[in-house]
């Protein structure tokens, strides 16, 4: 019983990390249709920003979250302005272009910060475990879970309760008609891309004390993020949170009862089967084309 409860909490924790990493991708992919292969590199840049702010400025991880969001969002905004903006009508080319941006980001970090693994300190107050209902939970993992849900709520609010969000949804449905109504789609797209990149940066900063920080760390996260988005359904925020939860629990349980190698394989097989029968994902929003 204890083990079962502990395992559910573990699944939630894995899910929260998946959600953090996938949320930015879901927004960018869902609204602009850009398959952002550089998403993992924005995660990596967030982790390196955390390392930079901690080592050279002396900010703790919690204090540096807002600056990290701003820094990585700014980088995302620049990437959108310089490259992606010109490719909205050629979605396949964006794969190559964003992949190129990713490679350049990796090498830029390697040249400036060096190739070795970097250390980001966990906030000392959260370095230990806490007991919730008799289950030992890492305090930091609980914090990540809370923050992931908060960021999800914020994103939902922005999308469905603000005028920027309404314009974004209008553009997503039909860009030309939305422009006819006077919506500046270029500006909205830039903002969306910057916001998505900023979220990725936060994800990177938040996983950095649990995992390792290296120039190549992004490549595994981008795969996880795509799995979440594809399973949940494009253009569906609810789908993103639901599929994070499903994948997190599935991964946790399979890894516990067999091992991580098998869990990874089984999860991939399950996703392939699902998208064979529901190519639009589990929770696709019904949108008139």
């Amino acid at each position, binding site marked *: 019983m204890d083990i079962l409860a502990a395992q559910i909490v573990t699944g939630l924790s894995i899910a929260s*990390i998946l959600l953090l990493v996938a949320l930015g991708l879901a927004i960018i992919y869902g609204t602009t249709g850009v398959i952002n292969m550089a998403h993992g590199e924005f995660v990596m840049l967030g982790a390196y920003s955390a390392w930079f702010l901690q080592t050279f400025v002396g900010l703790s991880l919690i204090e540096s979250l807002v600056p990290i969001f701003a820094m990585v969002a700014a980088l995302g905004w620049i990437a959108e302005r310089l490259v992606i903006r010109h490719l909205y009508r050629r979605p396949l080319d964006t794969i190559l272009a964003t992949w190129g941006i990713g490679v350049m980001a990796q090498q830029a970090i390697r040249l400036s910060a060096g190739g070795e693994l970097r250390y980001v300190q*966990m906030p000392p107050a959260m370095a230990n475990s806490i007991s919730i209902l008799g289950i030992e939970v*890492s305090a930091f993992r609980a914090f990540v879970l809370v923050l992931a849900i908060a960021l999800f709520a914020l994103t939902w609010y922005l999308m469905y309760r603000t005028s920027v969000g309404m314009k974004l949804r209008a553009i997503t449905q039909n860009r030309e008609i939305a422009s006819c109504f006077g919506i500046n789609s270029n500006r909205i797209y830039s903002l969306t891309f910057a916001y998505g990149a900023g979220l990725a940066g936060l994800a990177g900063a938040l996983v950095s004390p649990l995992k390792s920080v290296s120039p190549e760390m992004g490549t595994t996260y981008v795969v996880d993020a795509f799995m979440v988005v594809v399973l949940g359904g494009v253009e569906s925020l609810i789908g993103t949170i639901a599929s994070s939860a499903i994948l997190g629990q599935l991964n946790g349980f399979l890894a516990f009862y067999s091992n991580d190698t098998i869990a990874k394989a089984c999860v991939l097989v399950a996703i392939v089967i699902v998208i064979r029968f529901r190519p639009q994902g589990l929770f696709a929003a019904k949108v008139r084309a």
Partner: protein
Amino acid sequence: MTLNRRTFLKGTVATGAFATAGFPHIWMKNSSLARAAAGEIKVGVLFSLTGTTAIIEESLNKATLMAIEEINDQGGINGMKIAPVVEDPASDPATFAEKARKLVLGDKCVSVFGSYTSASRKAVLPVFEKRNNLYFYPTLYEGRECSKNVIYTGALPNQQQDDFVPWLVEKFGKRWYLIGSNYIYPKEENNYCKKLLAGLGAEVVNEEYVPLGHSEFSSVINKFHSEKPDVIFSTVVGDSVVALHRQYRAAGLDPEKMPMASLTTSENEVAAMGGDAAAGHFTSAPYFMVWDSPENSRFVESYRKRWGGDKVTHFVSEPSYFQVYLFKQAVEKLAASDITPPNIREAIKGEEMIAPQGKVRIEKENLHTWLWPKIGVCKSDGQFEILKQSSDWLEPIPYKAYENQVCTEQGLKES
């Protein structure tokens, strides 16, 4: 005269033909027969400077180059300088093979120093065996290899575990949890470990492998919670080591009761995970940065002077360094016209030197190295404290887990 495409092409081809005819060394530069021509000895340096394992291989590259520079500053080998040809195989086994071919055939190197992973060593092996060249491999590895074309200066399973496993059983207990990355090295190490444990009457409660590069250990940690092993024997490699230790610490597990005993956690990984996550866990290796010897102080000091004051030396960079000196000692015994890979191999057999870890020797039967295994416990400042050194240097036995096989000078003998 207008320059149309046809005349332009003709002109270019003619110029090219003239250039190659006029300067034959451009295309015949590899035809020189004497390998130690022009007063220099060419060697290859083959460590990844990009890609996933660049993190660690960069430090091996640096240690190798530093040794070469030191030897050259002291006048080289019998007056000849060592000329390193550095290639970047980009952490990719296929590129390793391609670059190895280039170094052996194109550059005519007499030996190559390289590789960190077993996969990359296996990939270059055919090149060195076919061309009868010589490869110097500095990493601890799984053993079970008997090549006449590789000099192995890292530790074998028997050298890392013979002292370590009985010591842990006595100190902590007999219920062991084996966890490793999913590839050949951890499986062979665990193979040998299980043999030792069986002899000691200890029990393996679980044996598990995670994918390479895996970074989510929360389910594994739940299993630690439920199984409550006495010792967690870890052969997880690379950045996974960092994730495992940090998540172990965050989950509130106590190294006093359930320590991780690792063959793969060096100062390098500890720097990335932070001393608080590493403190209290054990590593077995022939070399630690804190080892107190004049040779080691000199090594650490010059390494930091050359590459930066925050750099660490570790149990793979140390062999990368001393193996160049063994190479030097072997070549010193040869006349300039005799410097060929097979002669170097014969000359290096039984060669000894005082390395930073202590006195080492190349075993003539199997070309592995006699080493001094040590047991270290990590402290919160990120350095190890050495608890125990083996009473004598340990013989390398690459087939220790396989009783019917022995590696000899003539090759693998099966009984």
